[in-house]
């Protein structure tokens, strides 16, 4: 089934170090803050703002397949977005990704779908 939304060009694959994260904004007006991860050569994307107190996850640390929030060290599982350790308890949103010609794309629902 086709997912609603639009593929947005987010980053160059070569700009993301392995086991690291970068923050980007995508959407017609750059309204979506997205964190793009490269784990073992595979790309993932989640919302960039922590669900606890809105710190930017792309400033945080990738540990195995978790992103640790830079402010209070709450952790989210990158592939699923689930919250794994206090003080975070609400999951973060995840987005589908694809890589074409060395460019990472994320599928983001436009605001009118939300």
């Amino acid at each position: 089934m086709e997912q609603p939304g639009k593929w947005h060009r987010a980053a160059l694959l070569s700009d993301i170090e392995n086991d690291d994260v970068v923050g980007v904004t995508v959407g017609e007006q750059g309204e979506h803050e997205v964190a793009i991860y490269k784990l073992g050569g595979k790309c993932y994307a989640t919302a960039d703002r922590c669900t606890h107190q809105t710190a930017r996850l792309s400033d945080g640390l990738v540990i195995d397949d978790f992103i640790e929030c830079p402010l209070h060290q709450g952790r989210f599982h990158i592939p699923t977005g689930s919250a794994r350790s206090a003080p975070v308890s609400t999951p973060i949103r995840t987005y589908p990704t694809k890589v074409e010609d060395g460019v990472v794309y994320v599928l983001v629902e436009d605001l009118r779908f939300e």
Partner: protein
Amino acid sequence: MKELDELVKIREQIIPRSQLKRLAKRNNYAGLGFLAFHLSLIAGTGWVVHQAMGTWWIVPAIFLHGAMLATLFAPLHETSHGTAFRTVWLNEAVLWLCALIYIFPPKWFRYHHAFHHTYTQIRRRDSAMVLPRPITLMQYLVYVSGLTVWRRNLKYLFSHALGRIDPAEHEYAPADQYPALVREARIMVAIYAGIAALAVTYGSWAPVIYWLLPRIVGESYARWIRIAEHTGCDEGSDPRANTRTTLTNPFIRTLWWNMPYHAEHHLCAFVPFHALGKFHEQVHDKLAVSNGGYLKVHLELFRRFIRLRHGVQVN
């Protein structure tokens, strides 16, 4: 969030993320080494208490042992940040062990402390603001005695165990976590009740002599250290001015798991304790650093903020 944006902006000016990422690497060895050192010292001072039994030496021995127990605040704090060990279960196990001995519910500590990091030195928001100025001598002495802290900590433990989270503290944790907070307090109370039952059954005073009494009198030492972290620093969210690093000798630094590098810790809490020394070398000229040890910080506070008995404000 204004406070957070300011912290991030200043951090980016002080140190690039690539450098922080290198410092933030986790391992288990440093934590295990510090823990072994720490627990050996506690065992040692426990032995001193045992040897002093029946003599007047028991009084200083209990204080010494209590001071060592109070330093468990350091691993409690580091594990609450999740930065003490790379392995999560090890981090959580040590967090629970320290929380049980220190008598502070661990998950609640995490939430409470997270709020302190967000609103450091913001009056009426900072959950752990120590002695906002002007300080009187009496306030200082009461705080250092640890009595007010005991009242607060025991209130957390027992009111949570009874299923009550104080409405004034609702903002520290999301409502979906209240059941977990109540559960952890009940587990702690059940463990303490078990220890009490065993002590009564066997007619043993050991938990009182080796744990409760030293823990109560030793809290002063933790308060003495905690005062140096922020008290007298600027109010506001600038981490260069709202937190103080206190340079001290390697023994005290190790005992407190490098917490004396407190300004560095507040600048970037995901740098683990074992990398704070290196972090300090890279950023110390941008932060508030006191270089004469804890005594100097306290004397300075006396000079600047404490209204002495004759009512003259020395400042």
